[in-house]
């Protein structure tokens, strides 16, 4: 059986520096995988290779067995591979309602319509508020995004990803920039993601990683040094060496 | 062969004058990231001042150049202080509007003060007439323009690569915040570079007056020409600007000689083609 999402022997070098070395991984339906690694491990490059913002020197990215390596970022989204951004990218003057409605319209292929309005489409509005409700954003539906708190903007990022109904969701540090006291909001949101969606989360917050992920992949110096259960990651010698150090020792003790 | 040679000389002279005028624009754009549409207006102001000094006051050519350069800088410094500083880091549209506003003002005032007619800057005897270079003769003022271009290019290279001001300038171009943190007074660097850019523009406006005649609409007529040099050459790159100037000089001059009835049609077509092929400039840094 072919995996839902597969990265096959991906390689990328800048100048003489190998930033991504022979990275392979696969995700199936409903997977919850965290990709972690110390600074400079090549996580950002990996995200850019997968989303199509960079071209790999070698290797493939596959969705349901189809090679999407030559697709531009836009076509990858249409193929069901959706990402969120590490630093929030939203439309400051628009409301959460408009954001989500636009994403839904785009998914339905109606974003090019030159007449009518999203507010006059009951099905779009219903779905918009269902999604906003899931993320506790309903009350802010009509407030311009530039006026809402950063933590809630992060939630809206997730809302947008949900509205696109992806098959694979790439979450690039969903809790980045959110005050620690508000991380639970993000966590609640992640818990609500559809069960059959495959999620690959890149994250620094280890508590979040260990609560969310059923599987952890560790990237160090451009290559995968561990792929397995979170529990085993903390006991893996190479992982400890490369990265986890204090945390692993602490929990082992 | 004769035509080919004259086109070559004219193209070289024209390209060098473009270079002298535009290089300042390139440096300031690389440094301050301001799209300055008014740069040509400063070249024009230089031309007017020199014309006034040489023709109406009867001063010598060299002195007229010095007065033009200094005069233009004196006019430009308050503009930098009160108008340009407001738009550093502003959105593109704001910069375009502000600088085109300045251009319109300068054109209107020039028209009012000096009238709509062409202004000449009388050349000294040494630059009039042809010079024999062995197998051909060349108009002396064109040779002078080419020489000036070479001197400016070398001088700038020395200034930027070999002096402490150059070090500060390069640091500020690369990373303004970091340069400021290291104690470079970036505001001063900005103001000094702006003055240098304007001075060079005025200088180019004077020595180029034979090829780019001084009249009120000068600032609009050559606006795209100067901008395209920066766009094609890449902001902040001296070699890039030099190549772009020689290329554009060659295209424009060839067009004028071979298909004059089409006016500037082929020049603009070439501009579009070049920018189309190199949307980030020949030597532009990937951003």
């Amino acid at each position, binding site marked *: 059986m072919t995996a839902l999402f597969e990265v096959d022997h991906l390689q990328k070098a800048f100048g003489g520096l190998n930033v991504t070395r022979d990275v392979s991984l696969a995700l199936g339906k409903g997977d919850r995988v965290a990709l972690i690694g110390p600074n400079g491990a090549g996580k950002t490059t990996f995200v850019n290779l997968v989303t199509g913002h960079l071209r790999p020197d070698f290797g493939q990215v596959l969705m349901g067995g189809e090679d999407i390596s030559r697709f531009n970022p836009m076509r990858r989204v249409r193929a069901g591979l959706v990402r969120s951004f590490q630093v929030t*990218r939203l439309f400051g003057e628009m409301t959460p309602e408009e954001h989500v409605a636009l994403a839904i319209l*785009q998914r339905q292929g109606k974003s090019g319509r030159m007449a009518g309005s999203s507010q006059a489409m009951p099905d779009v509005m*219903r779905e918009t508020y269902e999604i906003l409700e899931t993320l506790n954003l309903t009350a802010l539906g009509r407030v311009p995004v530039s006026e809402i708190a950063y933590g809630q903007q992060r939630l809206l990022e997730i809302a947008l990803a949900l509205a696109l109904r992806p098959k694979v969701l790439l979450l690039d540090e969903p809790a980045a920039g959110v005050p620690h006291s508000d991380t639970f909001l993000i966590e609640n949101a992640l818990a609500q993601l559809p069960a059959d969606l495959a999620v690959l989360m890149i994250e620094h917050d280890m508590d979040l990683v260990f609560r969310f992920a059923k599987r952890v992949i560790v990237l160090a110096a451009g290559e995968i040094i561990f792929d397995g259960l979170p529990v085993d990651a903390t006991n893996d010698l190479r992982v400890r060496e490369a990265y986890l150090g204090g945390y692993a020792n602490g929990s082992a003790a | 062969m004769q035509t080919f040679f004259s086109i070559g000389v004219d193209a070289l002279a024209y390209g060098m004058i473009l270079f002298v005028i535009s290089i300042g624009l390139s440096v300031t754009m690389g440094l301050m990231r301001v799209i300055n549409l008014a740069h040509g207006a400063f070249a024009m102001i230089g031309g007017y001042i020199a014309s006034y000094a040489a023709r109406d006051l009867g001063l010598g050519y060299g002195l007229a150049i010095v007065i033009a350069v200094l005069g233009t800088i004196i006019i430009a410094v308050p503009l930098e202080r009160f108008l340009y500083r407001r738009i550093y880091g502003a959105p*593109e549209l704001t910069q*375009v509007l502000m600088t085109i506003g300045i251009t319109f003002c300068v054109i209107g005032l020039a028209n009012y003060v000096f009238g709509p007619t062409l202004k000449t800057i009388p050349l000294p005897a040494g630059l009039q007439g042809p010079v024999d270079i062995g197998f051909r003769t060349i108009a002396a003022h064109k040779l002078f323009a080419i020489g000036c271009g070479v001197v400016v290019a070398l001088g700038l290279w020395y200034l930027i690569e070999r002096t402490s001001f150059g070090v500060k300038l390069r640091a500020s171009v690369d990373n303004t915040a970091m340069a400021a943190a290291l104690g470079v007074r970036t505001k001063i660097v900005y103001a000094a570079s702006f003055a240098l850019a304007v001075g060079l523009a005025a200088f180019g406006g004077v020595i180029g007056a034979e090829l780019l005649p001084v009249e009120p609409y000068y600032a609009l007529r050559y606006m795209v020409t100067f901008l395209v040099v920066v766009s094609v050459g890449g902001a902040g790159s001296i070699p890039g600007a030099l190549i772009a100037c020689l290329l554009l000089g060659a295209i424009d001059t060839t067009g004028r000689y071979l298909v004059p009835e089409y006016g500037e049609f082929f020049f603009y077509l070439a501009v*579009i083609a070049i920018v189309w092929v190199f*949307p980030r400039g020949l030597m532009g840094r990937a951003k």
Partner: protein
Amino acid sequence: MSAGVSVTAIPAQTRGWQRDLIGISVILIAALAGYFLFPNNLALLTRMIAIMLLVLSLDLVTGYCGVATLGHAALFGSGAYAAGIAAAHFGITEPITMIAIGAIGGALAGLISGVVILRGHGLAQLVLSIAIIHLFHEAANKASEYTGGSDGLSGISPDPILGVFEFDLWGRTAYVFGIVLLLLVFILLRILVRSPFGMLCRGIRQDPVRVSAMGASVKLTLIKMYAISGLVAGVGGAFNAVSTQVVGLDSLSFTNSAEALVMLVLGGVGSLYGALIGTIAFIWIEDLVSAANPFHWLTIVGALLIAVVLFAPKGLYGTAATFVERYRRGAK
């Protein structure tokens, strides 16, 4: 929950349409006032209408999509020449057909401009836009057989509208025709900017990367908008040809492009009302100043621009709207 949604959604929508109705009524009242207060100045008011269409068209790409261009007159002038050439050389003198031909001409020019200008970003984009307008200008100048070159294209004599309303010496028919066209375009554009497509364009202005991460094509959307913008500018140009019965090279000039941008900024970028108000204010000032001292016109435009950038970056309409908004919030 869904019941609550529909309750909040519907009033907001009707409020939008009510505002549009008010806007349309204001335009109509202003049009009537112009007709009766300045019966000897109808030619100026008619020119205002043509330029309003150009500025509305520019607002679509600059205000709604965030593309800074100094070459937008290419779309307007193409519309004017398309209609003018159709009338002067091919005997198509039915005014509504001429407007349609102008719209198509404008849309084609919009398509070409869009494809070229969107190739670059920042400075390159600006350079391309300036080069485009000069290129169109030079081409029209060279093709003097069709365009009349620098003498302008004359010999345009449109038929009566619908075979009934003849173009009179006082320009009354032209004025009313213009108002009808303007209202029609305005209503269609209100629909457009509020549509999903309009929302997508606003998104592109604010963050193109986010839009492409939603799976939408930024470039294709912008090119579509450019074609629509060309349609609108083309109608304006064609209307100018119909009402003045000549087309001059200045309709394809850099100055015309730059002035359109000034009008838009003066009124307020990104709002259709701003485009209309800016045009009226600009042409009115132009008329006053050039009557008093034609030499200083360009100086005044320049000073006006600098003043708007420094003191009212949102333009007349935007600044007024902010004041009203603040007042309302304060009242609550």
